[in-house]
């Protein structure tokens, strides 16, 4: 989670302070390896019990994991391809489109945003 690290924790709610180390690159990397480890463990777990599947293909060890990984990547890449086709500037449907309007009109807290009072 690559972004400007923010070490300052004052002014944050106590719960947030608890979580505040989260976006340090070191911790992010640790988290990644933890996830990898859990995944490998889950894959190996398939050898430890008798699987009850509906289809023959389910019998293959760790098939769900592999399928999940591949399907996820496929979704992302297909979506990236799709974006090439369908992406348009935000003012495409102008005038009278909500995409470029001030979103605070939907009823934001006027103090918190420092914005004008809206409906």
């Amino acid at each position: 989670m690559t972004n400007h690290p923010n070490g300052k924790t004052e002014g944050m709610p106590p719960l947030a302070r608890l979580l505040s180390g989260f976006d340090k690159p070191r911790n992010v990397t640790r988290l990644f390896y933890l996830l990898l480890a859990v995944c490998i463990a889950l894959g190996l777990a398939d050898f430890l019990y008798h699987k009850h599947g509906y289809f023959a293909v389910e019998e293959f060890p760790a098939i769900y994991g592999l399928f999940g990984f591949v399907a996820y990547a496929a979704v992302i890449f297909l979506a990236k391809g799709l974006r090439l086709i369908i992406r348009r500037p935000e003012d495409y449907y102008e005038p009278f489109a909500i995409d470029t309007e001030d979103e605070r009109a939907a009823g934001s807290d006027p103090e918190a945003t420092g914005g004008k009072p809206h409906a």
Partner: protein
Amino acid sequence: MPEIGTPALVYMVAALIVPFVRPATLRQILLLAVPVLGLLTFWQLPYGTYGTFNLMNMHVGLMRLDALSYVFGLIFSLAAFLALLYAWHVRDTVQQVATLLYAGAGLGAVFAADLVTLFVFWEGTAIASVFLIWARRTEGAYATGMRYLIMQVGSGVILLAGIVLFYRETGSIAFSRMDLESPATWAIFLAFGIKCAFPLLHNWLQDAYPAATITGTVTLSAFTTKLAVYALARGFPGTELLIYIGATMTLFPVFFAAVENNLRRVLAYSLNNQLGFMVVGVGIGTPLALNGTVAHAFCHILYKALLFMSVGAVMYRTGTSKASELGGLYKSMPLTMIFCVVGAMSISAFPLFSGFISKSLILSASADTGHFFVWLALVVASVGVLEHSGIKIPYFTFFAHDAGHRVKEAPFHMLLAMGITAALCIGLGVFPSLLYGILPYAVDYTPYTVTHVVTQLQLLLFAGLAFAVLIRTGLYPAEIRSVNLDFDWTYRRLLPAALSGVAYLVQGTWRFASRIVMGRVDSLIAGVYRAHGPQGPLARTWPTGSMVLWIAVLLGMTLVLAYI
């Protein structure tokens, strides 16, 4: 509670009273009391049909209470309560009345025992809900609301046409299982389909939900589409066509959601995808599948509301719901973050969360009946759900790059609403029997088997791993402010463009023709005015003589007739 026919009545009466209640706090309390009172009207009632009477020789039943409508009535009441609690801060009576009428109409429609009552409430949901969009009070929202209203009322009109045809064919307006074999049932099917956001009929959903007010979207997400699912489950269970429609519905929104920047629109796509699961369940139509549909609708209303609430809370504090503008909010709104993650894990169907116990029913049903490819599509779609709702929403809102928003935690009532909803999501996930006990058919299903838990975790965590890998390698598509084309392009751009092209061609002829026609019309109106206007001969009343003349004429005419 006395029997009053339909709980919708409670909401309608309350909607009449609410605008006049002062002070505001009392009004909020009254609002919260309404769903409770509404629930009490059918809570302990034995199954049966209530509020029956004869409308021009047609049997009308306002409230049919059976296992199916009961579950939907229950969850709708719950959703109305949570939405109203979430909207505690709203002082806009338009929204409050609209929410009451909308929820009331939704309940009324679910309990409708006949098609006419269904139609009335069906249109009621359309008309009441559009005010939740218009309440944003911008021109864009107005235009969006109009498009939404056209689709929704169009659905109602088609439904009415279907009902009329159906009545002429069968002589009955009872709302029960139908077969797709006549224009009548096809029309009814299409009407349900529009409200259920079938592929190519779906755009109103992604168009309208991000346009509503923050609290309005939470309300919107609960009723309309689930009402349609209910109607399909009631009218067309086991219709095979629905399986393929549903499978398509689960798949295509996944890709759109992945590249969408507006998080509330992402959730709208995700809603569409979840509806797909339910539609597949209806299409399979076995008791297990129908149970799955109902259970999924129940859980879905809760976790989708939770997600909309958390994104709404963020929007309430920061003023935006665009992923490109958000990030790092866990530092400011940790509780909201936790609730959002609960919602995300529920919708992604992690074990111990509510999605897990309901979605598995549908997946098992599809596998049971041997629909391999459908089953496969559903599994892919489950990964997709994880992608856009499970990871994208919380990640881009609360983590990712810090967008620098330093805001207060969400207001207490929002936290309370989210907390209750989150607790329900987890509660249902941990104690599935709570939900299974009220499903329409007896449930013989154990969600927590080793196989199921392990495979599900594999699926989800490996997909999560893929996400991590893609992020670390920078392959994950960045969030960019943009508009993405969808089918609505056809009527928002293609149709107007085509029309203007055609208009250009026709213009010459048209001008020529219109000049003549308008001339005629003008002279016709002028003629009508000459005859009927205040000074026209037909509006003259003072001369007694002309009256006597008329008497003579009429008498003469009749006498001539008498003597012929």
